[in-house]
């Protein structure tokens, strides 16, 4: 009797729930435009509202830690580039820090300054990139992202002319840095840094006061401070919740105590705060960089006693951590005196910050979930390792 074939009805496998009516289970990812890589969220929706969210990751697992345990200390260095591939300078540094701690190597002053310069430039790269992607998740037609990329390109060009590669810098070494920047490089970098606030101002004029942005981000994805601390969340995500915890201040990593900078703190812990944390941190990074370029000492960039090959730290363990742009990035190493680490473990900030995704998303809509994920700032290379 029917005009059309009977195998009809909505496509959805509805999750029937006695109390909530019909729920819709959507598997967002691993191929989805805004999961920032091969990340997957199994989202259960009531209408557009999220009632359950299960993050699924591991699609980019590359066995990083086990590989590192089977190669020499030096050979792991290029692999750390691939952890957080937006911030290879800081991952390099964190790893070098751990190894230096393990072997008790000293780092010359100039190298310490260079490391801070590179780390802060990386912070600019990462945060501008992240903010751009966040706006893409919010539905702009790429404009803010491309403005951010335009500035990021300039920094990446600097990285390339220094280290030979734009993103896989492989720059830090145990006991120093690989290449000494020329005065021209330093001048170019200094000029770039001086111009960076102009970009930030323009960016903020364009978007920070935008009513749609305020409505889309304020009050969305709130994260309470106590909850964040319990989950071990670090970095701008934690500071957006109002917790004053910045390893640059807490640990005084490297020569950071010699620089004057402030740590911005949020009050609401929502997506807008997380966005603003990035903007404000970029402004502070510019300050650090300007001081560093002014006070950069001359001298060697490598510890003369440092050995490139045949490097065998004495048996023991060390944990080197760093305030990477995404949070506390730590490398935990155990040496048994052999050329390879006996145990090699990464504490990836992306992964740990991701653990509270469901709590942040519950009750919000699917559009918000994408934005919240974007504001956490994950890099799947680091999450999955």
């Amino acid at each position: 009797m029917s005009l059309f074939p009977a195998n009809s009805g909505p496509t959805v496998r509805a999750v029937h729930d006695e109390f909530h009516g019909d729920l819709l289970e959507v598997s967002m990812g691993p191929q989805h435009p805004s999961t920032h890589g091969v990340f997957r969220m199994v989202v259960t929706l009531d209408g557009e509202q999220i009632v359950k969210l299960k993050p699924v990751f591991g699609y980019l697992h590359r066995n990083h830690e086990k590989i590192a345990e089977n190669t020499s200390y030096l050979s792991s260095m290029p692999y750390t580039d691939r952890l957080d591939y937006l911030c290879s300078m800081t991952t390099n540094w964190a790893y070098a820090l751990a190894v230096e701690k393990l072997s008790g190597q000293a780092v010359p002053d100039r190298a310490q300054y260079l490391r801070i310069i590179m780390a802060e430039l990386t912070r600019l790269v990462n945060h501008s990139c992240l903010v751009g992607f966040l706006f893409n998740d919010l539905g702009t037609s790429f404009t803010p992202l491309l403005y951010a990329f335009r500035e990021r390109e300039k920094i990446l060009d600097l990285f390339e002319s220094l280290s030979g590669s734009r993103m896989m810098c492989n720059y830090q070494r145990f006991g120093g840095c690989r290449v000494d920047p020329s005065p021209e490089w330093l001048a170019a970098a200094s000029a770039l840094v001086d111009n960076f606030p102009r970009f930030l101002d323009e960016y903020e004029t364009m978007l920070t006061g935008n009513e749609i942005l305020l409505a889309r981000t304020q009050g969305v994805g709130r994260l309470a401070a106590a909850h964040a601390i319990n989950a071990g969340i670090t970095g701008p995500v934690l500071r957006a919740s109002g917790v004053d915890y910045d390893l640059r201040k807490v640990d005084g990593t490297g020569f950071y105590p010699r620089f004057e900078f402030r740590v911005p703190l949020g009050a609401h812990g929502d997506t807008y705060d997380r966005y603003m944390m990035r903007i404000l941190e970029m402004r502070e990074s510019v300050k650090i960089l300007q001081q560093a370029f002014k006070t950069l000492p001359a001298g060697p960039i490598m510890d003369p006693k440092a050995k490139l090959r045949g490097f065998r730290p004495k048996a023991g363990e060390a944990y080197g951590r760093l305030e990477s742009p995404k949070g506390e990035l730590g490398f935990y190493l155990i040496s048994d005196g052999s050329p390879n680490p006996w145990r090699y473990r990464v504490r990836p900030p992306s992964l740990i910050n991701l653990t509270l995704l469901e709590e942040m998303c519950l009750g919000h809509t699917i559009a918000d979930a994408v934005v919240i994920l974007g504001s956490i700032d994950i890099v799947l290379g680091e999450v999955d390792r």
Partner: protein
Amino acid sequence: MLGSGILKGLGVTAKNFVGSYHDPARMVTQEYPDTPAKLPEAYRNFPFLVTENATDPMGTLRCVACQICEKECPPQCIYIEKSKDKKPDATGKPQLYPAVFAIDTAVCMSCQLCVEVCPFDAIKMDHVFEVAATNRFEGLLLNREQLAKPNEYFHQIRPTEAAEVDGRLTAERQAAAEKAKAAAAAKAAAPKPTTPVAGVADPGPASPRPATPKPAEGGTAP
């Protein structure tokens, strides 16, 4: 006021629109195949082997097949087989040479560790990035012949580093030659002094041949 933020945003995009026509700081696009990419000297892509003499690339490889790079290579993409015989190197000292030297560029991650650990300045990073192959296995597995590039080429892509390397090498070789001469003088009884500087590389652009070798045409499988 509702809408003021939106109007400001429209203003910024309009500014960028106008700026993209006259401001090179805003319009950063390079039209790549038309205007060739300008690579910084430090740029690294895949390694190549330095030869002293472009006319006899296989005879004058600086590589002595010490296999350090093979050992240190993080993704293990270098494969070396030592030669059975020895050939004299630039200083005339008989050295092993690589009978097989292959790099799988499909695996190589351009980390430059091989360059850093090489004690002989025999392997360097190339600037050629337009590599494409139709065969994933043979097309990207480069052998000794494909990897070898003359020192002049090295000078061309990395003048600063090459000059420094050559300066160091010449100093070493002179030292070696003087040592040999001193040894020869000491061995005055010996009737025939060896000719030590047979193959000293001429670092300058004295070579009559055009220094640029063809960029590695990865597409042609051997």
